[in-house]
């Protein structure tokens, strides 16, 4: 199975080839090279996943396979960074998610990015991203994950800033990188703490169930919490940064400045779920060692989910709506992990979180790619420039509708099954939280259908060119993803992924299922009344709840808070005063020293007059003084 390393190496090779030779190749050639290499990677990944899921069960429990591992950097005898491939149910599942979406995006971009300046650069970056993301999920140890984590961050930076002449794109890419870097600082310190006490980076050891390695860290306390809790919480901060949890979510909506297929791949389906994957990867540590942190994850996830859903209801840029919806859905996954137990029925949350990750990746990528087709047709992101497009864009319309139904949680589409499991797990954890999450599910249905009706129904806007359906290279991925969305719900997911690796049969709880469907239908119904035809209700509501509406529209002013902290405090406060201090105080002192030396030499220069009489006088005076001193003493 050593060939599995090709899953990472192949995209990396493509990146190097396109990076070095890209300028010399024809645009379409580099696109084809990128796409073909991704297709091969996809085939290898599918084969690997197939071999793993059919062969890795021993006594009904999935084993961890490490088909490849080399030492890359050694710190001490026990601490060393390895680069390798770890196969277990979640990494095999992620392989499928990443390669599928990535391949779809590669194909889609052939049409979407056609004629763009820097086409080869785009494919080089896509390959770099795929390589890093695959390396991240296959990591055998936490430091390897951190390495690829950073690489993912930088590919995201490069792709958001793809249109590097646009000031908004540059600002957004910078913001995304710095906010996630800040979170990564937490991740890094968490890794350092955890590895110092456990003396290992290896996931195999950390999640082996051997609790003795944690006793020292659990026994040491710092500011009232165990160091272990600090470590896992800090590691989660890293995850929260990448997965855009409140209050580190601010970079994601801005990241929509990047090309739309990039948003589909990175900022909807793969990179943003890295945080969820991280928690799932370390789930035994969270669950057994620091359950309080895990509960914190659940509460934060629920809050973020609600917060983002409310904002999504009032945004007018279609990509922004989808971005907030992504944040909200990731919140669902975090909640699922947070409320989960370990083993058998208790582990429903874990399974559901991973299931939702899977289904969400497919339908959210579909939504973004659909949005891309719409933007491609009308050359705008704003809802007000759309309307009535269902006739002009029939394929986009149908696939978009399927995705909307899926995310709203309507059976038989995939989102229903995964979301239902999450709700069931949440209800059994705390009924109050279950109701809150159900309410958010209703909001989801509402804002998604608000989006849907505003784009495809209502009065058509004026267009310079008549909007027309996208080319086949763009619609094919839409159709494939829509097909997946229709059937993915029927995958017996518990047979593949469960908290303890044993078989788990999903059974729908009728009460939860009915409640959630009813709530979703209400959401859709309200949206239909409000937005299907022009109606005055939304405007009246807006006026009634003016404050709330404004706040939500401005994303509750979190960006302004950040701007205040970075601009006013760090930039103008700390940084400027340090720079001033350096030039005027420290350097001033050095210059002052030189100045004083200069002055002193001027002052005593007079003594060196060259007059013998004067020297003799001083000499005699000195002699007299010394003689006197000797005599007196």
């Amino acid at each position: 199975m050593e060939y599995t390393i090709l899953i990472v190496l192949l995209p990396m090779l493509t990146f190097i080839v396109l990076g070095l030779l890209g300028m010399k190749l024809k645009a379409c050639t580099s696109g084809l090279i990128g796409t073909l290499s991704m297709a091969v990677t996809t085939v290898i990944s599918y084969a690997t996943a197939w071999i793993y899921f059919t062969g890795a069960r021993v006594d009904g429990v999935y084993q961890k396979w490490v088909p490849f591992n080399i030492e890359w950097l050694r710190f001490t005898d026990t601490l060393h960074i390895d680069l390798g491939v770890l196969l277990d149910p979640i990494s095999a599942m992620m392989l499928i998610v990443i390669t599928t979406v990535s391949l779809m995006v590669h194909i889609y971009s052939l049409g979407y990015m056609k004629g763009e300046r820097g086409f080869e650069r785009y494919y080089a970056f896509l390959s770099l991203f795929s390589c890093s993301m695959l390396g991240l999920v296959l990591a055998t140890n936490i430091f390897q994950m951190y390495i690829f984590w950073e690489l993912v961050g930088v590919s995201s930076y490069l792709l958001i800033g793809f249109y590097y002449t646009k000031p908004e794109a540059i600002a957004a890419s910078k913001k995304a990188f710095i906010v996630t870097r800040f979170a990564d600082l937490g991740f890094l310190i968490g890794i350092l703490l955890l590895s110092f006490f456990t003396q290992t980076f290896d996931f195999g050891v950390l999640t082996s169930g051997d609790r003795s390695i944690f006793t020292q860290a659990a026994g040491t306390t710092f500011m009232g919490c165990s160091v272990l809790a600090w470590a896992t919480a800090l590691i989660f901060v890293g995850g929260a940064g990448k997965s855009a949890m409140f209050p580190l979510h601010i970079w994601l909506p801005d990241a929509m400045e990047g090309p739309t297929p990039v948003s589909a791949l990175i900022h909807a389906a793969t990179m943003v779920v890295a945080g969820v994957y991280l928690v799932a990867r370390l789930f035994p540590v969270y669950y057994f060692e620091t359950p309080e942190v895990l509960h914190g994850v659940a509460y934060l996830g629920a809050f973020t989910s609600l917060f983002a859903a409310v904002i999504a209801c009032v945004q007018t840029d279609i990509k922004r709506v989808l971005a907030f919806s992504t944040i909200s859905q990731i919140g669902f996954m975090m909640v699922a992990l947070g409320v989960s137990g370990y083993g058998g029925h208790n582990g429903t949350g874990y399974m559901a979180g991973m299931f939702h990750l899977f289904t969400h990746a497919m339908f959210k990528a579909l939504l973004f790619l659909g949005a891309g087709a719409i933007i491609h047709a009308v050359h705008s992101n704003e809802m007000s420039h759309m309307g009535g497009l269902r006739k002009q864009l029939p394929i986009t319309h149908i696939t978009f509708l399927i995705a909307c139904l899926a995310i709203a949680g309507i059976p038989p589409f995939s989102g229903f099954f995964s979301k239902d499991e999450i709700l069931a797990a949440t209800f059994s954890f705390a009924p109050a939280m279950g109701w809150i999450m159900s309410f958010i599910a209703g909001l989801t249905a509402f804002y998604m259908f608000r989006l849907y009706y505003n784009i495809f129904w209502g009065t058509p806007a004026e267009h310079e060119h008549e909007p027309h359906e996208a080319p086949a290279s763009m619609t094919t991925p839409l159709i494939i993803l829509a097909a997946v969305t229709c059937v993915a719900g029927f995958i017996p997911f518990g047979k593949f992924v469960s908290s303890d690796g044993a078989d788990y049969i999903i059974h729908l709880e009728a009460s939860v299922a009915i409640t959630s469907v009813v709530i979703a239908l209400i959401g859709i119904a309200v949206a239909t009344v409000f937005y299907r035809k022009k109606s005055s209700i939304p405007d009246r509501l807006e006026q009634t709840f003016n404050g709330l509406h404004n706040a939500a529209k401005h994303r509750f002013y979190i960006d302004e808070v950040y701007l205040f902290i970075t601009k006013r405090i760090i930039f103008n406060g700390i940084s400027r005063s340090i720079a001033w201090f350096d030039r005027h105080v420290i350097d001033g002192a050095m210059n002052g020293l030189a100045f004083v030396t200069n002055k002193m030499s001027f002052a005593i220069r007079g003594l060196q007059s060259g007059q013998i009489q004067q020297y003799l006088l001083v000499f005699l005076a000195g002699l007299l003084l010394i003689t006197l001193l000797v005599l007196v003493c």
Partner: protein
Amino acid sequence: MNFLSLFVLIPVLMTCAMFLLKDIRRIRAVMVTGASLLLVLAVTLTVMFLGQRSAGNDAEMLFTADVLWFAPLNIHYSVGVDGISVAMLLLSSIIVFTGVFASWKMSPLPREFFAWYSLLSIGVFGFFISTDLFTMFLFYEVALIPMYLLIGVWGTGRKEYSAMKLTLMLMGGSALLLVGILGIYFHSAPEGGQLSMNILEISKNTIPMNAQYLFFPLTFVGFGVLGAMFPFHTWSPDGHASAPTAVSMLHAGVLMKLGGYGCFRVAIYLMPEAANELSWIFLILTGISVVYGAFSAIKQTDLKYINAYSSVSHCGLVLFAILMLNQTAMTGAVLQMLSHGLMTALFFALIGMIYGRTHTRDIREMGGLMKIMPFLSVCFVIAGLASLGLPGLSGFVAEMTVFVGSFEHTDTFHRVFTIIACSSIVITAVYILRMVGKVFYGAVQNKDHLALTDAVWFERLSVIVLIVAIAGLGMAPLWVSDMIHESLAPIIEQLIK
């Protein structure tokens, strides 16, 4: 003759050749030949060193030679290398090589420029091969003096002021150092024994505690000035801003490393007890350097100032790691020296090339250069990513080794300072991305820039060599890190003795 002495001999011959030649083509030919020979020599040395080590030769220093030079003070010309010096020699030869290409079109007075440049290299290479304190100091001074002229004559901006400032501050540091070295010499043997300047011999004896308390700070600060330790770093921004490209490269790339190298070869190795006792004072200063330099860099508008302050921050991390006094962190320190040397040389080379075209270094007056000079811009972005610690490039390896090593201390004091130092990775990202965003992205600010051209062959060569080295170290760090790690064992033994 000893193989290592070639490292001094070749630059000496290069310097002499400059007096004989007039034609610029021949001067270049000599410089390129000499620099390439040095590079080949350094690579050969590395291979031979690793060969000897794997053959089981575990002497502390390899390829040693010793000639008595000045009997009354027992001064020898004694040379030898361990893994750390090999790494430093490799770094120096890369920078000297690329520096020659970066100053291909040097004017005016190219002959004199290259003569001083070669003289500077004598000092640098001599320093890293010496195992005798006095010889080491001598080479150190040989490296410092040409700096004054190189900046004063070929510099830009307030060059006389900067040259004077840099030289005086570094001379002040070396004055402290001289006192320290003499202090070590006079305590190098027990009462009545033969005093010695040889580092290996001194390390076998224990210098009395009261002497250590006095001379450790002197030597550490003496070398620390060169390593841009807060608050003795202010020569760095002015000096680098005024220096011509190749001099900035050599100075930030190699000369600042002399400080770090001296700190553990002399200060810590010979006075381990004082190092254990007093490290906390310097740890505070270097910890400040790390964040202070980074914060200052955010506010700068001149490309060279940004990079100079960034150097203060990165070199601060070198000294910071050394003061952690354990093998992992010190390995990280040497890796950081290598990595920073390559990175900062690349930065200065690129800044020089950009300045040579735009005639400004003010980031507010530039913009959109990516479209105009894609090669230089892409290389600059790579340098920036290396600087902010992107995995796969050298900075990451060095920083992570430092952090993991620093975390081996469990007390709150060390923890707090380690976390403060870690936070620099965020601040670094801020100033790097700000700089890159302003200069290379966005719309073209100045219409005159549209007519500018991209790099020519010698510039490309210089930059590509550096990038290959950075990526090489970043992707396959294990052999370097192992070579350094095992060479640190004697120093660590001294510390825990």
